[in-house]
């Protein structure tokens, strides 16, 4: 067992607790134990960067400092929004010594910016794709997955420095290793409307509808994501989407860790898939 730091973020401790279950179970099956960053706080999300720039640096900075304090060199932040916010704050702090000092004082912890932040795909990559491939017990041969990266897994490229922002392929590589098929489709990096679910539902429903439609049109029977917000919009809101556009999607939405876990022989319950709204048909 190797142990890495874990920053769940609010969603994984809230309505996306299925994602936490899935990520923990899947990584544990690969021999990776997650240890939560002590007393972590919200990354601030869109609210912080839309309303107050300083806060949008300070909140992630506090978490980075906490992680440093815990002695982590690397932490997993499965939510792409969290991991992007953490990385952005880290980049700003590393580029500006005065800011680093200011933030240290603000977050009341010495902050060096030495903690690296991984997203879930990177955590799986570092566990080793060959290792995953070798550990597959139930190849997912019925799956035709539309790998959905969403916005912040690859953007902004200068901050997250992960995969090609226009033609990413890292999720396909993992899903392919599970014996599943992946489809070529067009909405891999389009936005689902993100956190506007509550405040501007109309936008979210429309954007999400396009995504589900395109995935189906390209022959997918499920969509794979690593983002809790995307999951909420595509899964929990799918019934609303169907009502709004008078369409039938019935598209199962998986977390990447769900598929890996399934292939490794974990049950749907162990992975929290039973908590999804849309079941695979």
């Amino acid at each position, binding site marked *: 067992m190797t142990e890495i730091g874990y920053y769940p973020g609010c969603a994984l401790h809230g309505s996306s607790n299925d994602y936490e279950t899935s990520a923990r179970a899947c990584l544990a099956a690969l021999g990776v134990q997650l240890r939560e960053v002590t007393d972590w706080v919200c990354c601030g999300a869109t609210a912080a960067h839309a309303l107050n720039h300083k806060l949008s640096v300070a909140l992630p900075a506090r978490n980075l400092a906490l992680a440093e304090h815990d002695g982590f060199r690397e932490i997993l932040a499965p939510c792409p929004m969290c991991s992007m916010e953490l990385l952005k704050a880290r980049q700003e702090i590393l580029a500006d010594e005065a800011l680093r000092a200011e933030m240290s004082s603000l977050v009341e912890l010495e902050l060096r910016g030495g903690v690296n932040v991984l997203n879930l795909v990177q955590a799986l990559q570092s566990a080793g794709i060959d290792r995953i491939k070798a550990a597959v017990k139930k190849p997912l041969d019925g799956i035709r997955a539309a790998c959905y990266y969403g916005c912040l897994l690859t953007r902004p490229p200068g901050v997250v420095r992960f995969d*090609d*922002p*226009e033609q990413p392929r890292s999720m396909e590589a993992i899903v392919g290793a599970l014996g599943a098929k992946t489809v070529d489709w067009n*909405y891999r990096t389009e936005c689902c409307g993100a956190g506007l679910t509550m405040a501007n539902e109309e936008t979210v429903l429309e954007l999400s509808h396009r995504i589900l439609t395109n995935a189906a*049109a390209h022959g997918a029977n499920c969509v794979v994501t690593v983002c809790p917000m995307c999951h909420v919009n595509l899964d929990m809101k799918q019934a609303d989407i169907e009502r709004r556009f008078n369409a039938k999607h019935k598209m199962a939405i998986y977390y990447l860790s769900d598929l890996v876990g399934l292939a490794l022989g974990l049950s749907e319950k162990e992975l929290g898939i039973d908590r999804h709204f849309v079941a695979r048909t």
Partner: protein
Amino acid sequence: MARVGVFTCWCGENIARTVDVERVTEDVSRLPGVRCSVHYKYMCSDPGQALVRERIAADRLDRVVVASCSPHMHLKTFRRAVASAGLNPFLLEMANVREHCSWVHHNKEQATRKAVDLIRMSVERVKHNRPLDPIRVPVTRRALVIGGGVAGIQAALDIADAGYEVALVEREPSIGGKMAGLSETFPTLDCSQCILTPRMVEAGQHPRIKLYTYSEVEEVTGYVGNFEVTIRQKARYVDVEKCSGCGDCWNVCPLKKNPSEFDFGMGFRRSIYIPFPQAVPARPVIDKKTCAKLIRNGCGLCEKKCTRGAINFKDEDRLVKEEVGVVVVATGYRLYSIGKQQENGKLSGYGEYGYGQYKDVIDSLQFERLVSASGPTSGALKRPSDGKEPKTVVFISCVGSRDNAKGIPYCSKICCMYTAKHAMLYRHKVHDGEAHVFYMDIRAGGKGYEEFVRRAIEQDGAHYHRGRVSKITEENGKLVVRGADTLAGVPLTIEADLVVLAAAMRPAAGVETLAQKLNVGYDEFGWLLESHPKLRPVETNAAGVFICGACHAPKDIPESVAQASAAAGKVAVLFANEELSRDPEVARINEQTCAACYACRRACPYHAIEAAEVRSPKGAFVKNTARVNPGLCMGCGTCVAVCPSKSADLDGFSEQQVYAMVEALA
């Protein structure tokens, strides 16, 4: 003891108004070494010059100082004057008592004293002048032209027509370059092949042009007038002499599905092939990467079919040497490769456009082949994916150009024009089709250019949208192009059947390596540097190396041709004499005292200093030294300043001359 004559000019009233010329003459006559000091109203006039000549003879003068205007005005005049009196022209000095004295000072006493000072400095200087003779460098009156596109062909023909021999090196199997593959040309819409192929044939048959196709420049040594060039002739596997170009060989080649380089992958060729029917020379090559005989000793059909025994599977690369006096570089351009990481790692491409992923997203040169009458579809507009005639075509400008983030910051200059042409040609072929052009600015400066673009819009009905495209996706057989019209302030989605990307222009692959071989400078993008952007646009800082066409910067055909002829003109000027005569005010190294630290070699802007060995008369090694190549030295003197032992010196501005002037001040 030197015998110096000083000739002070009144310049009418120009000097005499503030400088007491008579007193100056008087004071100067007492300077040591001055044998004659006279003044005259207009020293540069014929009688003035005659006076100089007379006094040289009468007073047996061996040095002359003319105190008059700026040397930039009359140094040449007076050098000629003393030369006609039998004196070496470099034994003349001027003292600038007009621009630097009488014209800028009002106090006559002060100006007069300053004039005496200036003349005294020149008198002391001239005592240390050495007679210098023009440097003569023999010239091999034969030119090397690198690159057989329209610029290279034009330059080669012009030089050959001027009566000099030319070696024309082209790395592809045929000359013709990019232009040979173009459809029609803006702004006249004349057929590209119709105007170029006769020139290609002319170049191929010219008695003074030697073609080296399928060849590359391996090494260049020497200097202006005397280059030795090693050319690698790549193995063609076809004996060009024996071959008649009948075509039997390529007609039997079973490997039909190799993407054609000439068609930019829009069509196919065999493994033995000529790139296009009008190729010059019309002789095939065998592609060793795909030929079954060369890969695994199979097939061999072409060899069996050839009645002239021209196929030679044992062919190897050959190195050929050419001695030339000048090099003209015309290596042209290539398109920015869209979509992925570039080879220099710097440019990250345009993944959002799906080039290479969607068959119907093509670049501008591919489109040229699609609409070319000689192209793979014989000019019928069929899109690559399914051969259907596209009913909506989107043209996108500035793909890679003017893009600091992913592409290159400069404007590729010709895309606005050829995109208008593309839209026009498309509308001419598909009358019920829609042409949409996304542009940022229309740059149509040129004769008839603006009118041409307006014609595309007004007469041929192309829809122009001011905005960039953000993403292209394929849905249900349509390319969904998401752009914006910034003039209307709206996003714009167009479902297209074909998308044409006007990719940025970049210098041809490998041009940096070639530039290094030739000591020609290049910028961060690889464009070759001219010697002066305005006054020496086809010269480079390497003497005897000229540039023309799109190796220098993005440019269109008329400009490339004009530049090629300009380069040829420069070559003809250089070849007008059997020897190069150069200004002798160049650096020299005292090889006995040189410590061979080579600071001078590092500093020389012209690569005119090389490491050499001093050898005894019997050839034994004595010591290392730096050595100036007077054929290359331009006389800046930077080597003198960096030489710690002052073993380097500069004729015309020697240490002794300069120190004499400073010491004359004391």
